[in-house]
Structure formats: C-alpha cells, structure tokens
C-alpha cells in the first residue's frame, strides 16, 4: 500500500423538467493508506422547480491518518442572472446554455477535445425546451 496518495472527485449534475438526479460515490481508504487524502465535490444545478438532486456519498476509512472531505452544493439559475444576460441581448435559452456550460466547464475541460464538443452539443439538445 502506498503512502501519501491523493485523489479528487468532481461531479457535476444538471436536472431539468421533472427529473431526479443522483450521485452515488464510494471513497475507500484501506488500512495501509497512510496519510491518504481525498476531496470530493458534488455540484447540482436545478433548472426549474419540479426537479431534484440527491447525493449519496459512501466513505469507508480504515486508517486514522487519512483525511476524506466531501462537499456538496446545490444551485439554480437566479432570476437576476437571467435578467443580466437578457439585458445584454442574450435571450433566456441562450443564457441558460451559457450558464450550464459554465457550470459543467470544470469537467468538460478534462475531456479530449472531440468528445467535449460532442458532449456540449448533446447538452444543448437535451436542454431544448427545458427553459419555460
């Protein structure tokens, strides 16, 4: 077993319409994982008020020098943010696309270019009509 290992988990979930999104992740530090560190971040973005997000972090630590952190945030697109975008000439649908892309950027940036472009297009199509 290695000493001083590090890991980072970034999870970005977007819910729209009437969907329910769940994050379920396991972080395990075994008996020999001396000075291991993990940081997990689980961010949820809710579009509209009929959807939800749920986080189920599973943490198993068998070494007392290991440090495991978990942080969860929930946000939605504020009316003020939408108004700001619209006042600059960006309509509501384009504004939501901009903000959702910004939200997912941290993860998208890690993807290989071709895949990232496809993922972005898929995101746009999935959101079509979800801005009421």
């Amino acid at each position, binding site marked *: 077993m290695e000493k001083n290992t590090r890991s980072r988990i970034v999870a970005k979930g977007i819910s729209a319409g009437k969907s329910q999104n769940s994050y379920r992740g396991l972080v395990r530090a075994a008996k020999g994982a001396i000075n291991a560190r993990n940081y997990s971040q689980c961010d949820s973005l809710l579009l509209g008020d009929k959807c939800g997000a749920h986080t189920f972090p599973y943490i198993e630590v068998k070494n007392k020098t290991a440090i495991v952190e978990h942080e969860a945030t929930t946000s939605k697109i504020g009316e003020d943010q939408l108004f700001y975008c619209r006042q600059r000439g960006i*309509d509501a649908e384009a504004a939501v696309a901009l903000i959702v892309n910004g939200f997912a950027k*941290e993860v998208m940036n890690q993807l290989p270019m071709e895949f990232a472009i496809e993922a972005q297009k898929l995101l746009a199509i999935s959101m079509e009509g979800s801005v009421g």
Partner: protein
Amino acid sequence: MMLSIKNIHANIDGKEILRGINLDIKAGEVHAIMGPNGSGKSTLASVLAGREEYEVTEGTVTFLNKNLLDLSIEDRAREGLFLAFQYPVEIPGVSTTNFIKAAVNEKRKYHGQEPLDALAFLKIMKEKMALVEIDQALLSRSINEGFSGGEKKRNEIFQMAMLEPKLAILDETDSGLDIDALRIVANGINKLRNENRAILLITHYQRLLDYIQPDYVHVLYNGRIVKSGSKDLALELEEKGYDFITDETEMTKSS
C-alpha cells in the same frame, strides 16, 4: 428625439412607485436623475430595461421611434439600450470574455450582421480594455465573481464600451466606489460620450457630476420629477440637501 417618456406610472407588488414621469432625451445629451432613497430612481431604470416584476399601468415610452414597452428585454438591449447595474450579478463559470462575445454577436445577428470571429473580437476587446483601464486577467475570470466594487463597475463600463449602446442608463454607478475607482469609471464614461449617444445617469450624490458634467439635472421625488435644471441644480442640492426640494413640493401641493 431618442427617448420620450410620457406619463409613466409603474408599480411593483401592487404598490405604485412611478407616478407620472415625463422625460425627453436627445442623442448626445447627458441627463442626471437625483433623488432621495425610495423616490423611484432605480425603478425607472428597471422599467426602461424591461424588468418583469414591474407593471406599467399608464403612459408610453418611445425609443428611437419604437414603442419600447412592446419590446422584450433582449430586443430593447439589441436596439441599443444598455443598463449598467447598481449591483452587477455573478455568473460562475462564465467569463466576461465569453459573456460579452455572446452579447455582441446576438446584437450583430439582430441587425443582420455576421458574427465576429475570434480574431476580430479580440482586436475590439483590446481597444475597449485600454479605454476603461481593465486587464485581460480580470476578463478571463468568472464574471463579477470575487470582484471588488470598483472592478464590478469598471466591468459594467467595459461592457458598455463593447456594446456601443445608443442609450446608456447608469444606475448609481458611483455607489461603493473610492476616489480612485470613481475617477477611472468616470473617465471611461466620458470617453464614451459622443453626439450619437445619450446617457441617463442615476445618482444619489453630486460628486459623480463633478467628473461627468450633465446637460440636465432632474430631481425625482415620490415617483415624479419635481424639478429640472442645469448642472447648477446639483450643486444647489449638495448645499441645501433634498429637503429644500421636498419642502418646495409640499408647499406647492398645499397652495
């Protein structure tokens, strides 16, 4: 006439805030609106920008010969109406650069122009950055996130420079600024003055008007413009306080 406001009444949550506003603004003019807290200054800005929480119950607004109240929020912007917010909002993950590029290209699309490619856009950005003394690093960060008061206001003026509006409404642009930040922001605004653009400055304090000399000063009180004058009116207000106007108004009402 660029903007013509006739007898506008507006309320929010059933409470009437604007009680009959009349104002005409021509291209090239700078009008300052001053008034005590609660007089309706920010409400006027919000109503012109199209904020949906406000209901216009009476009156008309003509902007560039179009019925402004019939236009959507984004169309008002694309027609050339710009609001510099008093409290600019943060949008995590969206850089000022990407934000303003989207805005500029939406406006161009609306006017039947081709969108700017990255190179052309960058060139214009550099030009406007120098105008407002704002650096690339700030523009690459998530818009307004973690910005100081001064940085937020400079960012608003940078966006104004990029969008080249016909009418710029600056809502308490001087609030929360120290002397240096005020100087930089005022400089930027002055550089954007030209004979084709009109500016509506909403301010609580006289000091901004030391830097940006208005052509007209109007005092808003209880939802109405109760007095209009030249920039000397602002100096008079500074000296005597808003009481002298409100007392005058109360006396006129009871006579």
